[in-house]
């Protein structure tokens, strides 16, 4: 995870080693992972002195980003490497404590930008875990064999079922408001009322009692699904896991199915950027460019052939690389505020891959999993707080799944040059399998106010040229070759001059039109409030509760409400 020397140039952050997001079970410090039959058991045993940074100890199974990076890796590997698994049980290997949540000293010592990105990443990981149930048929059980506070309970709520040990002491709690004067920022409040449908007044009481709720009342309030006496706890969890794991999983996830092992991407990280096989990230001042290469070859003959050499498959590898680049950008390049998205290569190969995915994703778990990886990656792009401009130029291949990238961008510029004609084209990938977090496709979201334009775009057969694309509304503007350079340069320079805070807020508001979902609420409402509270003196001022937590002084609040 910590490979290269420090490269951070942010004025806000001290020179810290860059964060790397790839890891593997042999390198895990905080989790144990075992698979037996169709049941996987993930044991949390956070190593106190193996946090990402100096200056805090991860006591009582509290976590920092290093713990969550491993968790994300576990979930990913479970999905690919263990297709026979039907149930994941998450438990603690530390007596009397399940998880105490995000480490307070770590939060207290982090920059605002880091806190925001930490919360975003942990939220994305929990949603990835949560989606596993629907996408892979892998049910998840939180086995709370000890006290479960804050982010610990939020992790539990991301599971399908929560089983709580009833020993008179073990409680679930969200102590953030009463103890730290911040919010449970990893989906806690949203999942409480939106997912678990806990009555709002009971949720209000629960969220202000630092010590939490235990035993029967926790079950009565639906904070957990079942409370079980200590003497029968382990047995109950095992039985329940076996029960949930009966039958076979979807799309050939059978007990005998062979997994696909995830090999390292082996990207090159330098001060100038990141280079992967299909995706590269480069910088010029505060402007970054992501370039995605089209496949050089078509898709494999069938799903079985795909598995022969999985780590070289363009679709999967491109998604993983893009994902990695986005995380690198978020955590290690805070000052790169504008991101240009480009593609290069043969669009027909992209469309051939899309056809392959569309044909097999319904029947083959691995092909479906590749699709899920790209879906996740596109959502990650939607949620990246940088100005995103797609530049559709000669030699690009923004069709089908890659066209989705332009739709994720805040604006798209398509060159209109008769000497160098460019085309873009939809595929099945733009028609449903890659929804945004609001549950709609990017095209649906784009044309919310004009269903007939959406219908016409979907009905359009074959490619659009630049002018037709602008007319169809699928790109923002198609400047001609005389205007292009100035148009693009001015757009970028203007963008780079605006307040990064205001842009972040503006973009987040414009990107997610349409219905609210659990996800949009978590990233919109919950995160936005949390980010506001994280800036306020009542939390982080000299006398703020977060600042003083664990210190001898008590917080002093400014009592004015907004």
């Amino acid at each position: 995870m910590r490979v290269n020397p420090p490269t951070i140039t942010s004025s806000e952050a001290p020179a810290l080693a860059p964060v790397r997001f790839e890891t593997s079970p042999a390198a895990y410090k905080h989790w144990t992972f075992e698979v037996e039959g169709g049941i996987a058991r993930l044991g949390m045993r956070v190593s106190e002195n193996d946090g990402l940074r100096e200056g805090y100890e991860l006591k009582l199974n509290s976590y920092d980003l290093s713990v969550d990076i491993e968790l994300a890796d576990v979930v990913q590997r479970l999905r690919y490497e263990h297709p026979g698994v039907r149930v994941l049980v998450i438990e603690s290997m530390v007596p009397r404590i399940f998880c105490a949540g995000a480490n307070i000293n770590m939060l207290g010592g982090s920059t605002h930008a880091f806190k925001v990105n930490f919360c975003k990443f942990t939220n994305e990981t929990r949603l990835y875990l949560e989606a596993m149930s629907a996408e892979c048929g892998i049910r998840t059980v939180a086995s709370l064999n000890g006290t479960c506070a804050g982010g610990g309970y939020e992790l539990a709520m991301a599971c399908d079922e929560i089983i709580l040990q009833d020993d008179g002491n073990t409680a679930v709690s969200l102590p953030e408001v009463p103890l730290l004067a911040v919010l449970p920022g990893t989906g806690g409040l949203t999942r409480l009322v939106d997912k678990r449908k806990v009555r709002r007044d009971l949720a209000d009481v629960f969220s202000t009692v630092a010590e939490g709720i235990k035993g029967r009342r926790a079950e009565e309030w639906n904070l957990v699904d079942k409370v079980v006496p200590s003497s029968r706890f382990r047995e109950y969890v095992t039985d329940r896991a076996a029960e949930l794991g009966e039958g076979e999983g979807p799309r050939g996830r059978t007990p005998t199915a062979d997994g696909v092992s995830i090999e390292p991407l082996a990207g090159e990280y330098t001060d100038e950027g990141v280079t992967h096989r299909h995706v590269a990230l480069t910088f010029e001042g505060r402007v970054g460019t992501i370039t995605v290469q089209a496949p050089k070859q078509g898709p494999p003959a069938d799903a079985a052939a795909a598995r022969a050499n999985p780590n070289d498959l363009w679709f999967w590898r491109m998604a993983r690389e893009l994902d990695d680049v986005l995380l690198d950008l978020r955590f290690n390049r805070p000052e790169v505020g504008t991101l240009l998205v480009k593609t290069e290569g043969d669009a027909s190969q992209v469309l051939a891959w899309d056809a392959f995915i569309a044909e097999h994703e319904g029947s083959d778990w691995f092909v479906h999993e590749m699709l899920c990886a790209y879906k996740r990656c596109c959502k990650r792009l939607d949620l990246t707080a940088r100005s995103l401009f797609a530049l559709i130029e000669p030699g690009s291949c923004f069709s089908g799944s890659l066209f989705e990238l332009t739709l994720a961008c805040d604006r798209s510029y398509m060159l209109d040059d008769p000497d160098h004609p460019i085309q873009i084209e939809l595929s099945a990938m733009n028609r449903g399998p890659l929804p945004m977090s609001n549950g709609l496709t990017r095209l649906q979201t784009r044309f919310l106010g004009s269903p007939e334009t959406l219908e016409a775009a979907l009905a359009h057969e074959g490619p659009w040229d630049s002018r037709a694309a602008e007319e169809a509304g699928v790109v923002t503007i198609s400047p001609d070759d005389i205007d292009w350079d100035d148009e693009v340069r001015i757009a970028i320079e203007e963008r780079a001059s605006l307040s990064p805070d205001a842009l972040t807020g503006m973009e987040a508001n414009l990107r997610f039109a349409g219905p609210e979902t659990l996800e949009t609420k978590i990233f919109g409402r919950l995160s936005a409030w949390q980010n506001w509270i994280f800036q306020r003196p009542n939390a982080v001022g000299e006398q703020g509760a977060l600042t003083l937590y664990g210190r001898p002084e008590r917080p002093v609040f400014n009592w004015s409400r907004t």
Partner: protein
Amino acid sequence: MGNVDLNARIPNNVALNEDRRLQRALEAWQPKYIDWWLEMGPEGFQADEVYLRTAVDVGRDGWAHFDHVKMPDYRWGIFLSPQDKERVVPCGDHFGDKAWQQVPGEYRNMLRRIIVTQGDTEPASVEQQRLLGRTAPSQYDMRNLFQVNVEEGRHLWAMVYLLHTFFGRDGREEAEDLLRRRSGDVDSPRILGTFNEPVEDWLSFFMFTTFTDRDGKFQLLALAESGFDPLSRTTRFMLTEEAHHMFVGETGVGRIIERAADLMNELGTDEPDKIRAAGGIDLPTIQRWLNRWYSSSVNLFGGEQSSNAATYFASGLKGRYKEDKYEDHVALEGIYSMPMPKNGGISDEEVPLRNAMNELLRDGYIGDCEFVIGRWNRTLEKAGRPERMFLPHRRFNREVGIYAAGDYDIEGNPISDAEWAAKVDGWLPGEADMDYVKSLMKPCLEHGKIASWIAPPKKGINGNPFEWEYVRYDGSSAGVALGATPSLTGD
């Protein structure tokens, strides 16, 4: 239960007959308490008349009222030390404000937690000791056991009074849960670890009342400094009773040491086997019991560096032992130098004073325990013996706090797992020790008789001699009382 009846049955100085809220709560709780007492209180002897002290008032005469009484008829009462109308919050950020007569809303949950945790230890110890009556070494000791038990019961009442009076429905539910949890029960254990360890023999009982009840004393001393006045007044009165429990423990162990010393002198040997052959308990065995219960009790003070402890102090909910001896009651500036485990060794680190409140209280406790050891050693000295008892280091055998993760020898030096495994039998009771002490636990229930392993006390209770009828057996339990082999449930 009518008002008159209620007041007669529940001696109190809290105007119970005028307090409808408390009456309502107690009407529901009291029968459950009696059920709990009959189920989990002393096994057997419930129909016998025991010479017990009952608190009927807080005045000098009132709290030492003696009579023979059947335990289920014991009048558990509610007493607070007299109110000082001028009292102020003695410490923390609210230092100098008028002491609170009602629970401040912002501290309600914390206070409830403090009271529940303290309250939970009271019935727990009764449960831990419930089988001991059957194997009492004398009637005098049996009576002392029951005195301790009924007073722990009263301490439960004291905490329940606070829960009922100041914490509404939550308080009533917590009060019921105090009767629902069971010491050592895997499904519903008592809150603190030490209170789930069985007290199976009288040596353990005396160690428990010496060391574990002494933790109680120090917790009560810290709570007596609470800005929440009813808690302070309640705990102040409890302390007068707690003193007797520690007397029972300290003199109990002292008499076992005295007996061992006499046997060593009589036999002219200090060999444990020979002392055992003569029916005594040898000093190394006593020391191992001491090590076990002392180290277990040291855990009860919690983590060395604790943000909870800082918050309790800052909020004025819990003060320091003898807070009035300090000059600075805000304690924001101070530093406590604390030996911390680091890289396999120990090095001092500075901790803000408020975060070290648990350790400060532990310091007071350890000092107090040293005095006890000194008095036991005077017994040995007087008997002309060269042996001495000692306290293990505070790092020894810990399960809570910064020393829990590593192994430390009896002097507090870090040692390896292997060293610990090789030496632990010399430090803590082993199976053979347990079997031997257990073999001594035979009833000696006729008045005037005493077991072979303990010396009689210097004097009896309330001016009565040792050879006095402290327990009058009811016909139904006489068979058991007069020497038939008891069958211990749960044995």
